[in-house]
């Protein structure tokens, strides 16, 4: 599944991130464990939590990231 389809409060492992310089710079990469905080309506970004950081990722990009649910 892609990250944007993720459910709130569920944890995911990212297993395929596009090679985007902004994503790289902010440290979003394969193998990262994230949880979904919230999604914004009308095409807004998804907000994920990585450890204690909160990161907003555009819908278009989040749709390109493949993720797997974990417990």
């Amino acid at each position, binding site marked *: 599944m892609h990250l944007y389809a993720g459910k709130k409060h569920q944890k995911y492992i990212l297993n395929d991130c596009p090679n985007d310089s902004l994503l790289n710079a902010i440290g979003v990469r394969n193998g990262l464990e994230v949880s979904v905080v919230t999604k914004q309506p009308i095409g807004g*970004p998804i907000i994920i939590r990585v450890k204690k950081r909160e990161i907003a990722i555009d819908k278009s990009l989040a749709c390109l990231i493949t993720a797997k649910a974990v417990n």
Partner: protein
Amino acid sequence: MDCHQTKPLGNRPEGIKRILLMGNPNVGKSVIFNRLTGLDVVTANYTGTTVTYHEGLVRFQGNQALLIDVPGIYGLNAQSKAEEVAVEMLNSGADLIVCVLDATHLERNLHLAFDLQTYDIPTLYVLNLSDVAKRKGITIDVHLLSKYLNAPVFETVAVKNIGIDILKESLFKPHPVKPALKILDRHEKSQEITENVTQEHDVEIGFLERLSEWCIKPRTGIPILIIVLLAALGIIVGGGKGLRALILLPLVNNYYIPFMTNLIEGIIPESVFRNVLVGEFGVLIKVIEWPFALILPYVFLFYVVFSFLEDSGYLPRLGVLMDGIFRKIGLPGNNIIPFILGYGCAVPAILGTRASGSRRERIIVVSLISIAVPCTAQTGAFITLLGDRSIFALAFVYFISFLTILLAGLLLNRLLKGKSRPLILELPNLLMPDFKTLSKKIWIKMKHFIYEAQVPMFLGILLAAFLVETGMMNTIGTFLEPLVVGWLDLPKEASLSLILGVVRRELAVMPLLEMNLTTVQLITGSVVALFYLPCISVFVILVKEFKVKIALLIALSTFVLAFAMGGIVQILLNLVM
């Protein structure tokens, strides 16, 4: 961020140690800078660019060093103007680098640390925001981190002045240059270091963390936004009225005006010259009354509210919340920050768009701000003019402004080729801002406003007094009669607004105060003034940042819009009222 430019410290003693204070944005660099330096801080513009930075002297036991607050950056790849400036500052030589790290975002911060190690300059590290880290359940082994980085690391809580003294002392000790770390993959290395030095425990989630989450969830975020907006309006509009009524107006009306009038009437006999000084548009009267008693309170309170929101970390959350809506006008949500800044002054707002954004985005934001966002001085003028008559009239003018932003935004998004970039944003910690840093910031902004506004204001008022007292205004009024009286249904004298509005935007509103206008006329005059023309300093920045063509295009559209909207509003309101 600043309208105003000064030269770097000219009287710098020879041979003094040069220290660069560097770090990612939002790590608390300004607070550390303020704690280390005294009051003699200057804001400077890096040569040839509009990136500003601060310089100040650090004093310790009779020694002095020059501390330079380099703009906040994520790396040294010259990806933005700020990064280019940082690289140039490094290349022009430094005796020491103080690299500030955010304890809550160590992994990302280490990238800049690695970049800095490629320069042969001794480096100290500061691990700031350690109180926030503790609150979040993060502990960092400073000793181990120092081993990894092969340099001293100081743990600080800048806002509470914790760790600052030890840091200050060590700035004056000799530090050897260390060989750079051997790094194959910086992502892996920063991850490895962070994992080894950090321990995370579960802590009870604090109020600010919970508030942070509420701010970005639509269901709670939108009510919070409404509360913030109402509070901001209450403070600016209500507080401004209070300040004026209780302090400034009595001072000006009861003391300053009678004093000045008596003084001048005592020395100068009845003449045109005396009227120019203390008559209807008396320069000596208006030059104090308009900026100080009518506008200044609003400008001051705007910057109080804005600086608080900026330093608290709320604005990026607002950007995330508004992203969906902003995309409809072709902008990623974080552009809300230059927008809000534009309600203060368009100049820093336009400069602020440099750091982020593609050219297409910049043109959209900058056009919308220059056309339809009133600056605080204008807002103050509107409140003075309309607020006392009818709060609905005031709301109506702002409604027109919003409507224009929306329509013009939709149009520009259609007209300009290309797509806006995706939004990727790390949310900074939500914090209680530091009072001292905040006051200094507001003070600097007020100083700039007074310097920037006073001279054009004075010249504008001088021009007005001259035109009115010599009767030339009559001739101009007759010439502009078809437009002002025929189309806008304003009295002939209102053409003075059009003349003064060229000098400064709020000056287009002020002359209307002195005329006995109906509510519809007040609204019409305000709508015309809302658009009219970008003020001179905005126009200059537009030419510098874009091209003359774009600057002229923006000026022309707001000019045409001013009269079109003014006339239409007048006709419609006169039909219904």
